[in-house]
């Protein structure tokens, strides 16, 4: 229907390493890019900045975590802490008068530095124990943030971010902020798409599958683990900073607490480990779901004439969020990305699928 192919066949190494081997995919991406650019003219700014912008930023975060968890196979439950490092360093730098371009860079590098510390744990342990250590590091970071007024911004524990500006231009308009988020998300996506095609990406996958087997093949697994953590942390740091600069406008410790780490991991897993398109879908599902569930429940309650307590209504989205994770892992542990891939594989050769058999 869309693809009109008999399958993906390569004649040369070059065609095998193309970013989009299927022409329809490339066209679809171009279409989506154009849609992204045109979005401010198509979508009311309430939705643009209330839903699309945070979705893009969280997607960038999910991609970053996917790099270390999905590709390099290292469990990371302290991603929120890494985002916090980037956010706070960047905001402090910006408040100090450093232009935002450099402030973002500082945020990313600071996160990289702290994130690489996590990698040194990954050298020593893996699997469950790595997860527990990173979780504990998240708690340490939470504690440091809430207990040091110098970082978190005094008694109210909130830190106002200076007006966002790039190239000397203040960016305050809704469309402007949206483009910043959009640009960053596209940049991270391109990076991840390209990473797949490089030796680095392949080495990361080798480390994930069996780190000592990779080591025997001459892949320095420690080096690649550090690289994975550092790159992922850089993305996390800049994303955290952008989240504060374009969406929250002030930084507070609870924006990067342990539940944020779990939420990003949930997005990764529901999207599908290692899947780029899945990262977009996972972030969208987890972000949109609480609002939708709330609407449904209050609607149903009204329809049935039930009295629902404020507290009940407040906690139902949480229950639904947990249920979503549980059900997803039960039904399709490989995530939305896998579902998409199934549909795509089917449609790829659709009218000609007798050829496959």
């Amino acid at each position, binding site marked *: 229907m869309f693809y009109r192919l008999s399958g993906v066949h390569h004649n040369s190494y070059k065609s095998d390493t193309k970013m989009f081997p299927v022409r329809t995919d490339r066209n679809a991406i171009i279409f989506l890019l154009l849609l992204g650019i045109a979005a401010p003219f198509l979508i009311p700014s309430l939705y643009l900045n209330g839903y699309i912008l945070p979705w893009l930023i969280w997607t960038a975060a999910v991609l970053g975590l996917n790099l270390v968890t999905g590709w390099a196979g290292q469990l990371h439950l302290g991603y929120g802490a890494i985002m916090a490092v980037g956010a706070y360093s960047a905001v402090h730098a910006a408040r100090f008068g450093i232009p935002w371009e450099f402030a973002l860079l500082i945020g990313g590098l600071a996160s990289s530095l702290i994130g690489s510390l996590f990698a040194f744990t990954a050298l020593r342990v893996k699997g469950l124990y790595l997860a527990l250590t990173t979780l504990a590091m998240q708690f340490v970071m939470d504690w440091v943030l809430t207990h040091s007024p110098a970082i978190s911004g005094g008694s109210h524990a909130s830190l106002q971010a200076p007006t966002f500006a790039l190239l000397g231009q203040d960016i305050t308009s809704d469309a402007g902020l949206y483009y910043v988020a959009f640009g960053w998300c596209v940049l991270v996506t391109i990076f991840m798409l390209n990473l797949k095609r490089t030796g680095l990406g392949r080495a990361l996958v080798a480390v994930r599958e069996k780190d000592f087997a990779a080591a025997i093949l001459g892949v320095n697994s420690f080096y690649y683990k550090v690289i994975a953590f550092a790159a992922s942390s850089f993305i996390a740091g800049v994303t955290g900073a952008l989240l504060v600069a374009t969406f929250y406008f002030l930084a507070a410790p609870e924006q990067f607490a342990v539940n944020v780490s779990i939420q990003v991991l949930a997005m990764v897993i529901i999207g599908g480990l290692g899947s780029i398109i899945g990262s977009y879908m996972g972030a969208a599902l987890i972000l949109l779901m609480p609002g939708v569930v709330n609407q449904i429940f209050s609607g149903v309650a009204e329809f049935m004439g039930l009295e629902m307590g404020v507290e009940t209504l407040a906690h139902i989205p949480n229950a639904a969020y*947990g249920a979503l994770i549980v059900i997803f892992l039960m039904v399709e542990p490989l995530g939305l990305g896998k579902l998409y891939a199934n549909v795509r594989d089917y449609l790829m050769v659709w009218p000609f699928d007798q050829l496959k058999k």
Partner: protein
Amino acid sequence: MDWIFLAELTVNGALTGLLYSLVAIGLVLIYKSSAVPNLAQGALTMLGAYVVLAFSHNLGWPLWIAIPLAVVIMFFVGIGIERVALRRLAGRPIVMILMMTMGLDIFLRGTTLAIWGGSSRSLNLGVSYDPFFVGDMLLSRIHIVGAAVAIAIFIASVLFFRTRMGIRLRAISDDYLASWSVGISVEGGVALSWGLASIVAVATGVIWGEVQGVDQSLSLLLLKGLTVAVLGGLDSILGAIVAGIILGIMESVGSFYLDAIVGGGSRDLIVAAVLILTVMIRPHGLFGRHDIERI
């Protein structure tokens, strides 16, 4: 230095630590049989306390009915969770199993609070709040009761693991395939361990509910329980008790000195530090087993 005061800190720390051991024992029971780190144990604890409350306060039944009833209900809740959610994930990567238990944690917390609300309530076990003096040391009665419950559960588990059913559970934790080959029901054994952990969660919930009130913060005991379980060795019940005492003392004495420097709230920091250091230095904990390497 006031030695009486230090002794008091130590003893109270050890008692609190034994209360952490309760959470840890629940974790160990499940980890031992199926190598699943149950990050929902905190939420189960909270649910256990709320179920007891539902019978004793909402229905007004006496505690001696409410608690056994909650034990029975939670036993089946635990078995149900294993049957519905965990069983089909067997053999999947650990990241999915961890995510599943975290999802369960979020789900159980959300559901509990949606049903019963989040405002803190007291359980009122009837334990007197009058301080209890041993020599010059001032101890809390409920902590002593809780520590006694922890020890009792410890002894019960040790005895249980010597029964035929207990031996089968240990066999399952050793080798799934070999267990199947001699006709042991692996699924049944793992489900049973979830049921037992949920029973322990009721006991934990009741004791902690009395100590700090029944509310969402009960689920935060997970971090302390997890730290105790890891420090003791994730598959050792004895480890859970010993490590509980150690962590309790470190937390109580350490936070007394540290709080003066950092200005309060250093308990969580100590717990997190113990967790990190344990994993870095001795991941299998004090009593956890290395896998046997035969020469």
